[in-house]
């Protein structure tokens, strides 16, 4: 074979190579027919995409020069992660629960929102930032600036089976002492008093450990732990909470085998009436929509607290699902403006009604609420303070270790004292690691 032929052949190989690698090149055109095209990437969970698509069409009517492309899927963070690395990002996104959004903030990949938040709200005569529930907006702050914005608002507490409770004349317990008495009665009927989503200990941390630590030691006891104050995770408050969990465990008030169930499995046990109570957030109905037996009724209540506890009994847990405007977005101002539109009071109320969830916008609950949300909304309105397990987003390694400790406590492997020791050790490790940014 002649040299020229070889050269030709190699050239062909090279061309093929470029063809392969060229597939990943991003499109340079961002406009269609002179319109500015905006990309909005949405986590497609229980709420679907339709609301955001409708909002986009409405927004386009108001801004004829803009075209908004909404797309999403249930594991959107997997796509977004590589796109963030490459710097080719959407103009607005809801990255979903699988994304380490704080890592994006630390690496400077999230737009600082202060100047946008100081704009006027979409349909009210106040600043945009004053339309949010302050507790939820403040969670997205880092080093004095706003980055992560709240959208829908999840209230987390306990749910009880209304039909079952009515039949036996039981009342949802307000105090831990009442809970113990009630559990004894429920247990006698052969039904498990409480079940939990054992595979995911976050439910037990948010449903048992922290509410009881706050009840025993006040909100500060939890905030100290969250801020990694030395000794806070093994303080008297957390020890008391761990002991309460151990007491319920030892008295057999938790459903047998709950540790081996995932979230939908445990929730199914609750829906089938095999367990009377379960900790969960306000997404419970939309998550289990297809499996809820006809005629089944459930209702929310705050976790029962100690009768003489230090923490205010009205304290309620509320957290938000969050959106960000990427720093490298082509049109961050439009992305931010579209989010301002979606968080207007009108749109927020619409979201509450259509998607059966509360929103992070003040006054958005002043509408015809779906039955399951009436009580959570009332608890939230009457709450003297709210809290959220923010450490689980800030300090992922510590969170995992705390989950492991609580799981070990629930399965009876360790004592409450050992559980607290283990949690404190995890906090200490994070505290002493300079590579982990602190809040």
């Amino acid at each position, binding site marked *: *074979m002649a040299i020229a032929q*070889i050269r030709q*052949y*190699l050239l062909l*190989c090279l061309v*093929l*190579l470029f063809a392969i690698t060229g597939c990943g090149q991003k499109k340079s055109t961002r406009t269609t027919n002179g319109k500015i095209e905006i990309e909005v990437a949405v986590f497609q969970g229980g709420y679907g995409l339709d609301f955001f698509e409708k909002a986009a069409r409405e927004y386009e009517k108001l801004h004829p020069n803009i075209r908004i492309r909404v797309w999403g899927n249930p594991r959107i963070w997997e796509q977004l*992660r590589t796109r*963030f*690395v490459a*710097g080719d990002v959407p103009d607005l996104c809801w990255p979903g629960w*699988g994304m*380490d959004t704080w*890592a*994006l903030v*630390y*690496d*400077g*990949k999230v737009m600082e929102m202060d100047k946008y938040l100081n704009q006027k709200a979409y349909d009210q005569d106040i600043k945009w930032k004053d339309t949010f529930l302050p507790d939820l907006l403040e969670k997205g702050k880092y080093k004095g600036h706003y980055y992560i914005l709240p959208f829908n608002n999840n209230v987390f507490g306990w749910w009880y089976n209304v039909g079952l409770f009515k039949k036996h004349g039981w009342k949802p317990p307000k105090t831990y002492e009442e809970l113990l008495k009630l559990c004894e009665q429920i247990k006698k009927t052969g039904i498990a008093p409480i079940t939990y989503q*054992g*595979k995911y*200990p976050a439910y037990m941390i948010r449903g048992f450990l922290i509410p009881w630590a706050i009840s025993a030691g006040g909100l500060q006891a939890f905030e100290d732990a969250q801020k990694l104050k030395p000794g806070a995770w093994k303080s008297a408050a957390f020890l008391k909470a761990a002991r309460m969990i151990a007491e319920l465990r030892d008295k057999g008030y938790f*459903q*047998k*085998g*709950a*540790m*081996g*169930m*995932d979230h939908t*499995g445990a929730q199914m*046990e609750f829906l089938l009436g*095999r367990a009377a109570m379960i900790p969960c957030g306000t997404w419970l109905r939309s998550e289990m929509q297809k499996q809820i037996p006809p005629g089944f009724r459930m209702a929310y209540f705050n976790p029962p607290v100690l009768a003489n506890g230090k923490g205010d009994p009205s304290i309620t847990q509320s957290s938000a699902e969050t959106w960000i405007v990427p720093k490298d977005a082509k049109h961050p101002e439009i992305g931010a403006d579209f989010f301002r539109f979606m968080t207007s009071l009108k749109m927020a109320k619409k979201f509450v009604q259509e998607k059966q969830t509360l929103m992070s916008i003040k006054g958005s609950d002043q509408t015809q609420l779906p039955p399951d949300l009436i009580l959570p909304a009332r608890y939230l309105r009457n709450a003297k303070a709210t809290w959220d397990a923010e450490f689980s987003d800030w300090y*992922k*390694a510590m969170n*995992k270790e705390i*989950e*492991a*400790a609580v*799981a*070990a406590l629930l*399965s009876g*492997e360790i004592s409450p004292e050992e559980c607290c020791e283990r949690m404190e050790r995890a906090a200490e490790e994070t505290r002493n690691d300079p*590579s982990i940014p602190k809040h």
Partner: protein
Amino acid sequence: MPPIKRDRVTAIVIFLAPGLVLYCIFFILPMAQAFYVALFRWRGVSMDKVFVGFENFRKLFTGDPIFWQCLCHNLEFLGVSFVVVIPLALFFANALSSRIRGAGIYRGIFLFPNVISVVAVAALWSFVYHPTFGILNSLLKALGLGHLATGWLGEPRYALLCVIATSIWYSLGFYIVLLLAGIRSIPTSYYEASALDGATPWQSFRYVTIPLVWEILKIAVIYLIIHTLNIFGLVWVMTEGGPSYHTETLLTYLYRQAFVQSNFGYATALGVVVFVIILGVSLVAGRLMRREVVEY
């Protein structure tokens, strides 16, 4: 070089080049990159990497008890699988190689789990172990052993064994078929000769079958090592490493470090270590099983 020989060399080079180039781009390069990334602290969400040298490896070996726990779980996985799978596979392969009626059907049944996706197998067995409506608990109750019923995958003592059992159920068929192919290729005249010499079935198995499938047995063992030290999907779907790390394996831990805790550099270092471990164990196993190859 004579022209004909030169032509042959060019032809070989030309036919090898595309494969080699693609292999380099898609295998060698990413692997080299992995070794490189392991030297950094990297969150994996941007191009910001901090060079930390061998810090990730130091932390892995000296400051991370979970890593050792994971390694123990993987070795337990390997040990139990080895003790159960290899003898069982040999037994069934030997049984199926004889001309018993319906051998083909049995072969199909044994191989069947292997063609289902791992995720489906994991989901299926999660239901078998389910605390309230699982078949296992129902079976125990039917046998009057109701007191043994428990939430298997949530029980620290049993969770790992339950996952291992599923893995064995899943992979046994593959080893049977592998060994069966080896046994089938042994000329029947050897068995006839040993029978004429008065060998019992056990003796012909021990002195004819085993030596002649030894090379394939070696492959099976090395494959088992790779499979059990690399186990991920099954564990992740069934338990996600829980309850409290009792089923955490090297790769579930790697995945958690990378994709949950955003420690890509650390996870990559772990990946490199797992690579070395698998290579080492496979080499040792190969050395231990070395014996003179019997030609036939």
